[in-house]
Structure formats: structure tokens, C-alpha cells
């Protein structure tokens, strides 16, 4: 079961990328329609960095914990 545990960091990473993708889509729509560009840029410039941090947490922290757990080969105690 331990080999499947990377599903968790992967799911968080995929969600973070999907949300950033949605923000980019909002920017694209806003640009194409010339509609509320200032609002869209402001919101995106706050939200995208936050989701990049979530992406870092998923990859560096959670994936890293899973990788080190496998590398330790069951040594150590929780």
C-alpha cells in the first residue's frame, strides 16, 4: 500500500496546476473580451503564487516525505 501513497501529493499537485490553469483561462477570457482585465490580473496575481506554494508543498514536502520513507527502508519510528 505504501507505493500508492504518492497518490496524495500527486492529487494535490494536479489540483494546484488545474486551479492555476483556470486562472490562466480567466485571464485569457478577460483579454479576449476586453472585459474586467484589471480585476482579473489583480486576482490572478494573488492566487497564482499561493497555488504555486501549494504545488511546492505537494512536491517538496509531501512527495519528499514519501520518497524518504521508502529510501529509509522501514528504519526509524514514528
Amino acid at each position, binding site marked *: 500500500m505504501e507505493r500508492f501513497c504518492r497518490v496524495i501529493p500527486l492529487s494535490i499537485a494536479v489540483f494546484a496546476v488545474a486551479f492555476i490553469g483556470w486562472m490562466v483561462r480567466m485571464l485569457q477570457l478577460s483579454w479576449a473580451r476586453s472585459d474586467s482585465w484589471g480585476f*482579473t490580473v489583480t486576482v490572478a496575481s494573488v*492566487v497564482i503564487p*499561493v497555488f504555486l506554494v501549494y504545488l511546492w508543498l505537494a512536491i517538496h514536502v509531501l512527495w519528499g*516525505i514519501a520518497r524518504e520513507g521508502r529510501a529509509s527502508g522501514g528504519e*526509524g519510528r514514528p
Partner: protein
Amino acid sequence: MAGPAQHGAPRDQQDEVLFAPVLGATRRFWLGAAPLLGLTLWGMYAYTLQFRYGLGVTGLNRPVAWGIYITNFVFFIGISHAGTLISAILRLCNAEWRRPITRAAEAITVLVLFFGLGSIIIDLGRPDRLLNVLLYGRLQSPLLWDVTSITTYLTGSTIYLYLPLIPDLAMVRDRATGWRRSLYTFLALGWRGTPGQHRRLERGISVMAVMIIPIAVSVHTVVSWVFSMTLQPMWKSTIFGPYFVAGAIFSGIGGLIISMAVVRRAYHLERYLKPVHFNSLSLLLLVMSLFWFYFTFAEHLTAYYGGELAEAMVLFAKVTGRWAPLFWAMVVLNFVIPVAILANGRTRTVAGSVVASASVVVGMWLERYLIVVPTLANPRLPYARGLYAPTWVEVSITLGAVAFFMLLYMVFTKVFPIISIWEVREGHEGLREAQERMVGYLPGPAEPAAPAAQGAGH
């Protein structure tokens, strides 16, 4: 951070009471869950009626297009401030008494946020069109700011709940058998407590603790903007942001105290959730009660003093008119009762703090209701004034939502340790470090005065 092999057997034995709820369900648990499940199913039945026949089965009308669903939305988002915000602030301040309460607080945040989002969906006449908001949304609308900020907060809070859970999940994994062992092996991410894993975990928790505070504050500010960006009387207010945030923290602490008292009683955790924890949270609740009164007074005084007709109509409808019983009940529940109980050291007991918290939670729901409905019932534009009374469908859905939240919280306490075991142990093992930190806060020994300075003194 506790080292990998520092947990002695005596502490393991002492902490068995924390693993007991996770490793098996008692008959008492099912007896508690059954009525909540019944209420949840009743609420779902009511929603199926609303879904089938539309919003005509509710009391919503023109001009009162928002009723108790939007009240619930603001209320649930407010309760969500119990966890992540309080936990993050206490963690960053190194408040040692936080250790047994952070998990209970963070769990409230994540679970209740789903109900906040759910209230919006319930309020929609055509929920099947929800996807259009994502596909063709315009970020000019504060409603879409809400979608964005709540999703950001929910994601962050989930990560912030999950990170400190990992070491505890590994401890449960090592005790569990059968399917439970597989589940916890999956969730524990292969945690072995190596120094490298501890470093990563600690870095992740620290980053999230810093990040989640502005996110939490921004969420309730954005919720308030849904109202204050309009020109409606008594909504267009520059202090609505901080007013909502203060109210959210206020109701959040109330919700947290109640949940702690229930968990303490149900799982016999008196050794972990001590009167000192309730006392500390009660003092925070007392301070927030005073803040709430200050904001409420400022908000209503400016409306009264300005004397603008539309604002005055809403104000007097609240204070002396149709909603006066609810308004004064709100003042008593949010200010008079909590201050009377919590300002007195003799009544600031566990039971006293629970009574005050229950009073605050009900009072804050009334406050949200009194923000939403009276303004819509007295619109600025020359429409006929409206009346609104929730129907049994709305009341059933609301009760069902509250019951479902309580049920999910119960299930959470059965699946995950409700007290952060490794953090409590870390607190025990770090007593010397805490003592050194305390000494560091105090003034150091006086340095011997220089001879020249002594001369100048004379």
C-alpha cells in the same frame, strides 16, 4: 521536533486513550450518530423537494432573494475561522497550550468550509448551471472572488490539517490491523520519523502557518464584500471587512470550545483538554465579545447619526421594528451572557465556557441573519417592502446541514486522532527548551555599571 526514537514506553501507554477511538467504534458512538444521520437524511429529502419544484418551496421572494441559506453561508465560513487561523496564530506565537487543541480546531475548518460552499449551491435555483461560473466567469464579480478565495482557503486548510496528521497516522498504522492498517499506511506517506522527514514536515507546517493567516483573513473580508460592494442600506460600509473577520473569529472560538468539550467528555480526554485550555480560549472569547460589541455599536451608530432615510428604515426595523426581538436577543447572546459568564473567574469554568460559547454560536447566526434579511426587505429602490419567513424546507435543510457537519466531525474523530499526539509528546520532551525560551523573555542579569557612568550619576 522529537527525534525518531525518543518516545518511551510509559508515554506510549499513557497515550493509548488517544488511539482507542480510532481503533474501534463503541455502541455509544453509533447511538450518537443515528439521530444525526436521521436529521441529515431529512435535510436531504427536503433538498430533493427544492431541487424538484424549485425555489418556490422556500420563503425567498422579491425583494428578499437571500434568506437563511446565505445566512448559513456567512455563518459556516465564520465558524471555519475557528481552526486554521487560531491554530496558526498560536503555533507562530509558540503558545505551548495550543498543542492538544490544534487538531480539533483545524478539523472544524476543513469540514465546515464544505458546508459554506454547499450553502451557496443550495441557494441556487439551477445548480446544474454551476459549471458556467467556472467556464465563463467574470472576475469583476465579488461572487467569483468568493469562489476563488474559499477554494484557496479550503485547499490551504486541508494541507494544513494533513501535514501535522502524518506522524500520528504513522503511529496508528503501527497499531492497526487489517483494512485499517492498509488505510493508515496509505495516508501516512511512508512516515518513519527520519530526521529528513521531520525537516520537511516542519518546513511545510511553518510555511503554511504563515500563509494561512492572510488567506483566512482575506476569505471573510471577501465574504463581506459580497454585501458591501452593493449600494444597499446598511451593507455599504467600509468596516464590513474587519467586522466580519472579528465576528468570524468570535463564532469560531465558540464552536471550537463546544467541540472540545464534547470530545473531552465522549473520549475521556480530561487529562489532555484541561480547564486551563478552556480558560485560555474563554479569555479570547471574552475579548472577541468586546470587539464584536464595539464593531456592532460603531456600525449602528454611524447609520443612526447619518440619518439617511433608507439606512434609518433598516436600522429602526432592526432596533425597534419587526426584527427587534431577534436584534436584542442577538445583543444578549453575543455580549451580555458571554461577558457576564467569562469576566468572572468563578464562572469561567469548563461548563461556563460551553454555555457562553453556545450562546455566542446562536447569537452569531442571528447576527448573520439580521445582516442579510432586513436590508433586502427594505430596499433602497422604490420597490414594495418585502417580508420573509423561512419555510419548513429551508429550516429542514439548515438543520440537516448542521447535523451532517456534526456527523462528519464525529466520523473524523473515529478515523483520525483528535489530539495531535506527536505535538503533545514534543511538548513534554521540549519542556527544557520552553523553559529556556521563557528565561529568554525575561530581563537578563544587570551588567556592572561602568565607572564613568557611576561618576556621572553622582
